[in-house]
């Protein structure tokens, strides 16, 4: 499918174009005037998308392009920077730039009239730049830099409506949670550098690279340049996985993602559903050879736990965006767990399909929210426009949103003819095949997958029925603007099977899967037939059940109280527990140190000030009274003496005579009587 043939140099140039153009929209908008128009941003991201497509068409399943230049050197250590364009990165490039383009277009309608819209475009540009650079970077150091930038731009966008207290709180929460993961990433990088002395991904993780050639002898992990205890290998793997846990919202660092929904819905769609959260999975893919079996087991357990937990929480949420957020957490758990069981290609495949249908789910939800908000403002009503209990009957009022969102929901649930069916079944079947080779808890993994995917069907069906079925609650809600609808339709097409495989019933024909190394587990053909059927039939039954409970002629009710309901509704009490375990102690420590600062440190300083004040008071008094007093005393003595003797010089004759007489008498007395 090559359209044009490019040389490696041209491809690098194209890569730079693809990366830099979104950054230009950031720069132009930050440095220049306040461009409220979307033209520049959309132009830039289009350029980026087109370049990505060209690169993709050239390099998919083609040769790997790896070009680097010397970046800087510290002493004798040389650090290089460059591009690594393999199947994973070119796929991610197209995915990121494509979905960004769609979200940009959607945002022109969704964010219309926002007074800070120029900042919105700038932040989106920054995000696209960092994400694009993240996926092509060839060095762990560069990846780390853009990893941080991605986290930062996500922080900016979550807190975009920073005047809302909840939004700024959520932005801080996301940033701090991500920092915890970043510490892991950094630790992993340090271990790798200590062991191999390079950050170059190709040198480290390539075929026959340093990781491959490092051997484990007698509990020591030996590379060409250094050796350390084998525990460091597992630690490094786990440390990198911590980065993934934070970015891809895995247990126990997942709690930021639902709160991140305070940002604009288009942002949630782009960053917190389709692209940024996939960065964690992408990182796992990039450094996959590093993980030993212990870390892979941890990854599997955490992934599957997250998938199950996210799904159960999504069951009882009432905020439409929160349901989708927990669904994202759950789906990311799927991808991570798939990485853990070695289903590398399947995981990336699910990442790609999930990006489209989850983006669509969010954007359609955004359309609903937007229209309800508009309706609310027009009629001066007061209700929570994100609460699905207050929606209903929008099927007839917003048919395009209904149809597209249903397609996305079907993809999420994994119904045939959708992309989700292919990727989810790929993971499911691979997990069954993988479990064949093991005993113990590993046997459980595929069953938890299956259970989770059924829960997924139920909650997404609940969402669709609640929002679009039943009696219309509000009169006069219209379809969202045509710009939004066109984006929804494009994404709906991308959520169907056609983009990924020509055969809607088997993932074997999927071109993405062929682009990655097979998981290498033994193939059981019988599973490929049975599992999709079981899953699909059960899913249909579940949808029917959900329709009975939440649909138009609801005959049954779902118990909305009780211990399990509350447990799920309060998101397994993670936030409460974290508040109790971490936030409170930190708060009391900081309150204590504030008091310490206020009382002891400030007190000491104040005491010193008071002491100096007293001392200077004393010296002031001394100066005024003793030294000045002495001088003044002398002068006043002289003055008084002068005044006294002056009296004798009154100029009056008789005074002189008196004086004279006194003196004579005094001399007389002195002479004769004393």
């Amino acid at each position, binding site marked *: 499918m090559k359209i044009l043939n490019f040389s490696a140099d041209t491809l690098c140039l194209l890569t730079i174009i693809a990366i830099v153009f979104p950054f230009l929209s950031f720069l132009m908008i930050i440095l220049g005037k306040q461009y409220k128009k979307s033209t520049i941003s959309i132009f830039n991201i289009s350029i980026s998308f087109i370049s990505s497509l060209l690169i993709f068409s050239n390099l998919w399943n083609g040769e790997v392009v790896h070009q680097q230049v010397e970046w800087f050197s510290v002493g004798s250590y040389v650090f290089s920077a460059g591009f690594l364009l393999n199947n994973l990165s070119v796929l991610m490039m197209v995915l990121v730039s494509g979905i960004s383009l769609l979200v940009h277009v959607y945002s022109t309608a969704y964010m219309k009239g926002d007074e800070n819209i120029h900042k919105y475009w700038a932040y989106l540009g920054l995000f696209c730049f960092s994400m694009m650079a993240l996926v092509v970077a060839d060095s762990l150091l560069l990846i780390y830099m853009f990893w941080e930038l991605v986290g930062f731009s996500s922080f900016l966008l979550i807190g975009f409506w920073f005047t809302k207290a909840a939004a700024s709180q959520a932005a801080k929460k996301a940033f701090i949670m991500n920092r915890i993961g970043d510490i892991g990433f950094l630790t992993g990088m340090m271990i790798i550098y200590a062991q191999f002395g390079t950050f170059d991904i190709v040198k480290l993780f390539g075929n026959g690279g340093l990781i491959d050639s490092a051997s484990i002898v007698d509990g020591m992990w030996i590379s060409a340049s250094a050796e350390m205890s084998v525990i460091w290998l597992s630690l490094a793997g786990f440390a990198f996985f911590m980065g993934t846990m934070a970015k891809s919202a895995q247990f126990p660092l997942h709690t930021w993602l639902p709160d991140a929904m305070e940002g604009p819905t288009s942002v949630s769609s782009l960053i917190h559903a389709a692209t940024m959260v996939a960065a964690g999975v992408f990182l796992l893919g990039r450094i996959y050879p590093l993980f030993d079996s212990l870390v892979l087991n941890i990854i599997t357990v955490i992934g599957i736990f997250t998938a199950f937990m996210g799904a159960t929480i999504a069951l009882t949420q009432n905020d439409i965006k929160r349901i989708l957020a927990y669904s994202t957490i759950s789906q990311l758990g799927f991808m991570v767990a798939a990485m853990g069981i070695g289903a590398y290609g399947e995981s990336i495949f699910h990442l790609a399909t999930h990006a489209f249908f989850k983006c669509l789910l969010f954007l359609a939800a955004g359309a609903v929210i937007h229209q309800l908000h508009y309706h609310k403002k027009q009629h001066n009503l007061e209700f929570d426009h994100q609460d699905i209990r207050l929606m209903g009957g929008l099927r007839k009022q917003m048919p395009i949103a209904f149809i597209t969102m249903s397609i996305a929901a079907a993809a999420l649930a994994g119904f045939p003819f959708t992309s989700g069916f292919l990727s989810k079944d790929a993971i499911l079947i691979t997990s069954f095949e993988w479990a064949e080779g093991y005993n113990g808890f590993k046997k459980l993994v595929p069953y938890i997958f299956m259970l989770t995917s059924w829960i997924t069907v139920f909650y997404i069906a609940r969402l669709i029925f609640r929002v679009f079925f039943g009696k219309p609650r509000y009169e006069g809600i219209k379809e969202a603007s045509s710009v939004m609808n066109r984006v929804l339709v494009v994404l709906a097409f991308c959520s169907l099977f056609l983009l990924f495989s020509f055969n809607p019933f088997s993932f074997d024909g999927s071109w993405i899967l062929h682009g990655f190394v097979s998981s290498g587990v033994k193939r059981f053909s019988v599973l490929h037939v049975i599992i999709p059927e079981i899953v699909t039939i059960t899913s249909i039954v579940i949808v029917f059940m959900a329709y009975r409970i939440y649909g138009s002629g609801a005959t049954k009710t779902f118990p909305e109280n009780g211990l399990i309901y509350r447990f799920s509704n309060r998101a397994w009490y993670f936030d409460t527990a974290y508040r109790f375990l971490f936030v409170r102690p930190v708060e009391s420590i900081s309150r204590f140190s504030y008091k310490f600062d206020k009382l002891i440190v400030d007190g000491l300083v104040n005491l010193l000030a008071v002491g100096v004040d007293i001392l200077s008071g004393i010296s002031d008094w001394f100066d005024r009274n003793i030294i000045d007093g002495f001088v003044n005393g002398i002068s006043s003595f002289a003055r008084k003496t002068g005044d006294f003797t002056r009296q004798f010089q009154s100029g*009056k004759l*008789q005074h002189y005579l008196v004086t004279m*007489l006194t003196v004579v008498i005094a001399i007389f007395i002195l002479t004769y009587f004393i």
Partner: protein
Amino acid sequence: MIPLSHFMLISAVLFCIGLYAVLTKRNAIQVLIGIEFMINAAILNFVAFGQFDKIKGGGQMFALFAIVLAAAGVAVALAIILNVYKHFRTIDPAKIDTLKD
């Protein structure tokens, strides 16, 4: 015969009256009179002590001499007072204080 002490007493009283007048009077003429009193007290002393020098009469001689000098002094003093009056338009010694710097 009048004893010497009576003369001495009268002389002392006269001197004191003269001194008082010199120190306290607000009129230069009265001050001059005070001075005359004091001179006369001295002359009285000369005469009183003259009884011990009857042959040469030194006391009498000095008394006459002093009377002449006092008359001359009074003439000069009155002339000065006259000039002072012309200059200051007053003869109150308390009001004339140009002797100070």
